[in-house]
């Protein structure tokens, strides 16, 4: 869980720390970037299970209450040699008590040499929350490990009519699905002088 995000952000942060100062100083290379940070107060639906989710507005989004990092971008451009690199991060992080990685995050890394080749990598997470008022008697322990408390099991087996009462006080959770989409594209357009360009 969260391995991809950690890996992506780790790679980008490492490259930024190790390579960016040198690239900024290098002649002919233009480095530009933008980081958007801020905060947003969110008036939540009191019936919602999760304070960050409120009805249809958050059906496909994770709208955090508090500090957010909505977008970040870094562009490298070497006009003399025709190299370029672009990194975009959208909704990667939020400052909150639980998991800081947002559910609707998106990363896009593209680099290459104009006219010769291009490598394009994307990672997009699309949440789809059907209901934020679903209830369950199960408790989640770890990823996908659902457990029913022994006390609940024995009580319901003894007196089945108790089930209705249990459901009334059962844990609320967001019923939905999430699509994690990753793509990798390599495009090579050598033209007539491509081999020479690749070597340059």
């Amino acid at each position, binding site marked *: 869980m969260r391995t991809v995000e950690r890996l992506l952000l780790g790679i980008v942060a490492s490259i930024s720390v190790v390579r960016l100062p040198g690239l900024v100083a290098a002649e002919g290379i233009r480095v530009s970037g933008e980081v958007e940070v801020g905060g*947003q107060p969110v008036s939540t639906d009191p019936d919602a299970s999760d304070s960050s989710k409120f009805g*249809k*507005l958050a*059906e*496909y*989004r994770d*709208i955090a209450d508090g500090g957010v990092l*909505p*977008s970040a971008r870094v562009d490298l*451009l070497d*006009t*003399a040699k*025709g190299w*370029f690199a*672009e990194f*975009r991060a*959208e909704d990667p992080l939020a400052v909150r008590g639980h998991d800081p990685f947002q559910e*609707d995050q*998106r990363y*896009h890394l593209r680099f290459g*040499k*104009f*006219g*010769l080749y291009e490598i394009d990598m994307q990672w*997009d997470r*699309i949440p*789809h929350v059907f209901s934020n008022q679903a209830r369950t008697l199960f408790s989640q322990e770890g990823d996908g490990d659902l457990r029913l408390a022994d006390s609940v099991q024995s009580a319901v087996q003894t007196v089945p009519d108790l089930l209705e009462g249990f459901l009334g006080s059962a844990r609320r959770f967001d019923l939905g699905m999430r*699509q994690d989409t990753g793509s990798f594209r390599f495009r090579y*357009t*050598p*033209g*007539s*002088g*491509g081999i020479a*360009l690749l070597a340059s």
Partner: protein
Amino acid sequence: MARIGVFVQRVWSALPALLFFSLVGARVSAWAEPIAQASHAGSEACLACHGEQAEAMKETAMGAILLQAPRNSLEQLGCESCHGPGSAHVESGGQSLGGMLSFRADSDEATDRKNDACTQCHERGGQVYWRGSAHASANLACVDCHLVMKRSSDRHQLKTAGSRTPLTIRRAETEICLPCHMEQPATLQRSSHMPLREGKLTCTSCHNPHGSAGPSLLVENSVNENCYRCHAERRGPFLWEHSPARENCLDCHEAHGSIHAGLLKVKVPRLCQQCHIETGHSTLPLSGASRFAFNRSCLNCHPRYTARTILPGFAFSGREDPGLEEEV
């Protein structure tokens, strides 16, 4: 004899039209003459006056290729690979275009001529169906959507840059389509909608604006193939097929947005009853409290797209039935 008479009569009646087109043709040729006479002046001549534009263009992929790393004889022409020979323009001191191609919005240039400059290179891949496509037939120029001379959107050099607010994200690809396709902004505001306003999809996730082999400029060859790109679990094969769903997802769903859950065209059970009117409970008048109508209605018992490969039961998602399961 009578036939010869008819022939002569037809030629005589067509004579004014023939004369008119001959004169217009001669006039157009004379008008176009400077274009034929102009030769390539080289990009250096252009940069003397248009240096600022060239610097801005170098930050784009096209600028970097044409002005710095051309790969073939056409690209070596630099500015003139798109704008045409510029010697006459240079000789006039920039006072006349000299037959050069202008892509400006206020240019009187024919759309075909503008587009031909682009399709010299951009005629493969996603643009392979451009000629004869809906947008080409509507006389749309490439530069109506794309900006060439400076860096604009994140990708595809679109004229729009997209917009972002805490509640909505509109990507450049979506922004460029909506001003013409005015019905879609309204449908996307419906409660059940494709996540375009959340920025998770763009129009080009499903449509290829440059043309396609399928209907409605869809990226894939059919509606269903297009839907399966994301909704892969609907592809099947299924043991019990719901034939209308196999035929076309749009038999039941609205593609862009609907006021009914799940992008359905009509609320269930009315949606199902449009076809299932033969016998049994589907034809009965149903009260809101009926188990056939409450909550998800027909879908309470019947799976949404009828079928799983392993679960038993014609028309049912099937509660586990040990007997049938063993049979399967």
